[in-house]
Structures are given as C-alpha cells and as structure tokens.
C-alpha cells in the first residue's frame, strides 16, 4: 500500500498528493510517470510524477478529477492509501541547454510540465513559460512556474485571469519576435492544445516535444493499448515515450483512440457518484 502523506486542493477539481513511494522517489527523473491502481477493483492509470523527495521517500502527483478513477483518487485524503503504484516508468525528458526555450502548459498539463521546466532552468536555459486554462481556477502552479522561469505568460479562454486567449497566442508572439530566439518548445496539456502548439511551431521550424497521454493498462510495453503513430510508424507511448517529436505525432488518431471507452466511463462515473453520495449519507 502507498499511503497519502499530504493533500492540497489546488482548484475545485484539481488536487495535489504527496505519496510514500520510496523506491520510485529514489529513481524518478523529470518526465517519468507511474501507473497507479487506487483500489483492489480499480483500473490501472498513468500519472506523471510532478516532484519527488528521495530523502523523505515521497513522490508528488497532481490529479484532475475527470473520469471515475481520477474522481475516486481525488476523494481520498491523508490517512488513505493507494493499492498499487509502480514506476518510475517511461523515458525521462531529454534535458539540455538550448539557450532559450518555451514551456507551454495547458490545464493540469502544467503540473506535468513543471518538473521539466525546473530541469531546463537548472540546465542553464532562458525559460519562457506559458500557462493557460479554460478559466482562472484551471490555471495551476503559477508561483512554482514563476520560480523556475525567466518570464511567464498566463492565458485563460474566458479572460477571467491573465490575458484572454489561448496559449498559442503568446507563443506565436515569442516565435515571431527576433529578440526571443527560442530553440526548443516543450508542451504538455490536452491533445487539441498540443496539436495547436505543434502546428504553430512547425511553421517556425522549432523543435517541439509533447507528452502523450494514451490509454494504458500495464505501462510496461506489454499490452500495446497505448500505441500511437509517430512519423507513420507504430510506437508504444509507455516505453518508446511518453514524449515524442510533436511534428511527427498523428494527433487526430490519438484523439479518436482516447475516446475508445467514453460509454463505459459514463457507467463507471454514475456508479461512483451513487457510491460517494450514499457514503456521505451514511456519514451523516
């Protein structure tokens, strides 16, 4: 079992957990993920490791309650424990000193981007960060990102915070401006956002890495459920990725594949809602 050491609610649907997982903490690098199973009857889902503390033997996960498993996880508190955590999985992000880089995070993707940003800053890069969300609540880790960036841009779709618009707006400005010679872009967020970033940077010929959140079962290269098409070839996101050259990713295919189980997800969600409601009534 993997106990929850601390929990912080970052936004109504987003929570930050620190878990005891000493073996994972010891080896984890920026870009790695874990596969977790919350309960005995649960499914296995991948979650990016946001931070780790090898001395304390802890890892940090930031989770947005979207599907049944993430909702269930977000309902857990200090004192609860996750049934299974395995990792660190996937290839670490290749970190080098490019000179100037842009780190682009959308929604909860900013959590996954944060350790990479930190590593890029530590490697000596001049870091421009762009973080966005649909609305103010979904812009997370702004202070943390500021601490490891030289300049930060914040966008919201509805204009409730930062500049109104999407993350590609400031990105375009940065890429057009000769004063800001960006050599590499790291983008993590919803698939349509990463696709949009890839389309923008392709025009400027700037190398871009994205992290693909495909559906996984084992996360160790065994099932092939996370297969993605990269430059026309089949790759497994869990062992060949999770990061790939954005200009080679078939985003449309992955968007369709990630919808494979929406009907099942609906059934699971309704069951969870009933369970949580009835347990609350019992508690009363």
């Amino acid at each position, binding site marked *: 079992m993997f106990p929850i050491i601390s929990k912080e609610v970052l936004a109504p649907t987003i929570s930050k957990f620190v878990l005891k997982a000493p*073996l*994972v903490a010891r*080896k984890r690098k920026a870009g790695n993920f874990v596969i977790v*199973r919350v309960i005995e*009857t*649960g*499914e*296995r889902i991948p979650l990016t490791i946001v931070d780790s503390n090898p001395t304390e033997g802890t890892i940090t996960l930031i989770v947005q309650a979207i599907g*049944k*498993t993430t909702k269930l996880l977000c309902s857990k508190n200090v004192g609860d424990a996750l*049934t*299974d*955590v*395995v*990792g*660190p*999985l996937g290839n670490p992000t290749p970190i080098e000193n490019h000179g100037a880089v842009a780190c682009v995070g959308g929604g909860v993707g900013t959590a996954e981007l944060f350790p990479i940003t930190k590593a890029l800053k530590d490697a000596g890069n001049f870091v421009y960060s762009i973080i966005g969300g649909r609305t103010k609540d979904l812009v997370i880790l702004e202070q943390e990102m500021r601490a490891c960036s030289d300049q930060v841009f914040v966008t919201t779709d509805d204009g409730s915070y930062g500049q109104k618009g999407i993350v590609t707006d400031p990105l375009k400005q940065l890429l057009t401006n000769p004063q800001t010679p960006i050599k590499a872009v790291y983008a993590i967020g919803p698939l349509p956002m990463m696709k949009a970033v890839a389309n923008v940077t392709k025009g400027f010929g700037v190398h871009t890495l994205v992290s693909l959140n495909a559906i996984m*079962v*084992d996360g*160790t*290269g*065994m*099932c*092939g*459920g996370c*297969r993605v*098409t990269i430059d026309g070839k*089949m790759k497994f996101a869990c*062992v060949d990725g999770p990061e790939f050259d954005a200009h080679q990713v078939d985003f449309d*295919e992955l968007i*369709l*594949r990630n*919808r*494979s*189980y929406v009907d*099942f*997800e609906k*059934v*699971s969600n309704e*069951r969870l809602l009933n369970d949580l409601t009835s347990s609350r009534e019992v508690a009363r």
Partner: protein
Amino acid sequence: MTTLNPLKPSERMKVPRQHSIEQPALERVQNFTEVSFGVDEERAMTEATRCLECKNQVCMEGCPVGIDIRSFIQFILQKDYAGAVRKIREANYLPSICGRVCPQEEQCEAVCTLGKKHMPVAIGKLERFVADYELEHNLFTPPVIKEHREEKVAIVGSGPAGLTCAAELAQMGYKVTVFEALHAVGGVLRYGIPEFRLPRKILDMETDRIRQLGVDIQTNFLVGRTATIDEFIEEWGFSAVFLGTGAGTPNFMGIPGESLTGVYSANEFLTRVNLMKANSFPEYDTPIRMGSNVAVIGGGNTAMDAVRTAKRLGAERAILVYRRSRQEMPARQEEIHHAEEEGIELLLLTNPVQILGSENHFVNGIECQRMELGEPDESGRRKPVAIKGSEYMIPVQIVIEAVGQQPNPIIQATTPGLMTGKKGVVETNEKQATSRPGIFAGGDLSRGGATVILAMRDGKQAAAAIHEYIQSKKPNAAVASPVTEAATQV
C-alpha cells in the same frame, strides 16, 4: 521392483484410457469456470493400472523437468496421493499448473510405451488428480530446508520460469526475492492464461506455497526502472540474478486499420480480462469492448485463449482467422478441439489484409484474402500463398491480433553487456548463463516464445547453475566453475 499393480501387463493394455469429466460446451461458454474437472479417484486408479512400469523410463526422459512418473504412479496405486504429489514436487514445484497446461501429448505421453500400440497413459490427468487431491484434502506440507545459506538471489519476473527458479533455490537454502512488475503474481499464468484453463484459485495456492518456502515476492517493481540489475549486484547485495521476464511485447501485423477502436493485441485483450477482470465490469473498473462478431488472427494457443474468451464475453460469432491449414496450427490439439465444441469458427487459409472502420473510428469489418499452400518455408511448414482476386469482407466489430510476442526490451536496454540475439532474445548457454557472469536467463526471454513447462525447465536448470556459480565464487572453492567459464564464452 515389486509391482503394486493388480493387473498383468497383457490385461493393462486392454483397459481403455480414462477421460476427463468436462463441463458441457453449451454451458461453459456462459461462464469462466474451468472447462475440465479432471478425473475422479476411480478413474485415476483405473488409469494408474494402465502403466506398464517400464524399466527404461522413457516417459521421465520425455518430461522437460524429469518427473519420476513411474514412481508417482506407484504411489497412486497405493492410494498415497500425497506421496505421489511429493514425488512430483521433487522435480517440479508446480504440479497443479503442469497437470493443466503442459502439452503432454508432445512430451511424456508421446513416448509412453503403451502409446505405441494403444493410447498412452494419461500422465497429465494423473498429475492433475494428485495435485488437486492434495489441495482439497489440505495435505500439503512444505519440504524441509536442510541448510540455510547467506547468499541472496534476485529473480526477475514471477512467471513459470521465475517461480520455478525461486522454488528450487529456496529449497537449497538461498534467500530469494522475486520481483514482479504487475500488481499480481504469476506472469503469463496470471495475465495470459484464462481462468477457464487455469483457475486463479490454483495459481494463488501454488504461489502461496512458494512463499511458504521463505521466498519474498515484491510486486509493483519493474526491474530496469525501479532498480537496475547492476544496482541489484552492486548495491542490493544479490550474489546472482535470474531473468525470467518472458516475451511480453505483442507483435502487430502492420496492416491498415490497426489503430481503430476495437483492435486489440491478444495480450491487451487477455490482460484486461484475466488480470483486470474486465468481464466483471462495472464491479471492476477496467472496461473491454465487445461485439457480436469477433475475429481473432493467429493459430497458436494465445489465439485460442483469446477467441474462446471472446465467446464467453458474449460474441455470437467468434472467428479464428489463420493463414495456413489446420495441420500447421501451433495450438494444442486439445485446445482446438475444445474451441470447436464451443462453436468457434475456424477460418483457415485466410489472411487479413486490412481492418475497416466507420467514420467515428470504430472497427466494422475485416478484409481477408484466401490462401493456398505452396512450397515449405524455413519452418518446414508449407508456405501460404495469396490467391489473387479472392479478397472479401467479414463484418466484425472487434479484431484481436495474436501474431506472436517478443521479449520486453527494458532489461536488455538497462543492463550493459547483456548479449541479445534476434528480436531481443537474451542469449544463454546450455546452463542458462548469459554473457554477464552471475546473470542467468530462461523461459520465453531466452527462447522467444515457448511453453510453460520449458520455462520451468530453464528455471530449474538455472537454479542448479546459480548454486554452482555462487559456490565457485566462495574463497575456498577449489576450481573455477564450468558455468562461469562457459558464461564468458557465450
């Protein structure tokens, strides 16, 4: 030796081979309960009297792990079933698994003297009977470990190779830790072989018995990522390592349409059901897509397991698509027979050319072409050749590809100096030693794709070699071990 058999040899030959009691086909496709209930005590006793007690024990030679078959049958004749299973366990620690999944027809039973003129002794059914009897009557006692040793051995992977190696080394007195990447123990026995061929209860019981030998099993530990082999040797204090990580990476055919929703590798399909219990959705959270028509591509045991699982999940038409003829199918005869009884359609000499999908990216058909057999290929089997213009479409909603697996590349990529051959298979010598001293490998990782029993054979062989290696490394060891010498020559 004095015989306990009441029958004269000439009488034994007249006794018909006993059959298993099986769940009727129409009933069993509605559930995941075991197909075969094995033989009862009466049938087992009758079957045991058929053994000719040959002086030259060809059956024992035919067994990859060398079970003393004649002796265990003698125990059955004395009604000492616990004694029989103890005799088996001297050579093979997992009898209730082997009694179920071993291809006896190609091994011990293939060489049985009785089989030359009559049907061979049903050795597999007898093995299963005594193992099940021991379980039902709670007769198991762990073997006594005579000498405890200080040295630690790491076993990577808890499949048949790893578990066998662990059991052997633990009985020699070593401190053994098994590392498993998944959350449950058993490897392919857990995620690959369905419940209706190997009940979870049996697997849990056998792994418990390995724990009773003092073996520590750590789940959720992916060797290569959570810790590397070199860390095991340099920091964790392991004297030797056995790699039994299997062949878990699925192949795909590389035909158009494989990214459509409803296309699974057999590995994923079986893992969702066997490991994650997707057949019990929504009580269990892992989903699985099903359709009225399901096509499974391939002709091996994995294809059989997948197509029979699809039938049990409610497919009206569960079709096996295989490009060669029935004769060339690598699956066990018994499995093909069971599948046909269950209404599985065998579409032979048929090769898929593309998977077709709807606008919303869901599978709605598979285009196939008819094949004919040409000249023999490198495998000695006649090569299937496409018949021009024979393409046609079968409406299906699910396509499952069971076209082979390769070793998972993580260990090879994270262990410098570990020599690999074709398709990432780890190279070993006849003692299962790899190119790195102290590192041994076996099962599908070194074979590319074989059977449970051959994995067990390798695990057993490696345990003996590990013992020899560790002893030879001791300061007072007289001469360099032949294992270490051989290892450097790989």
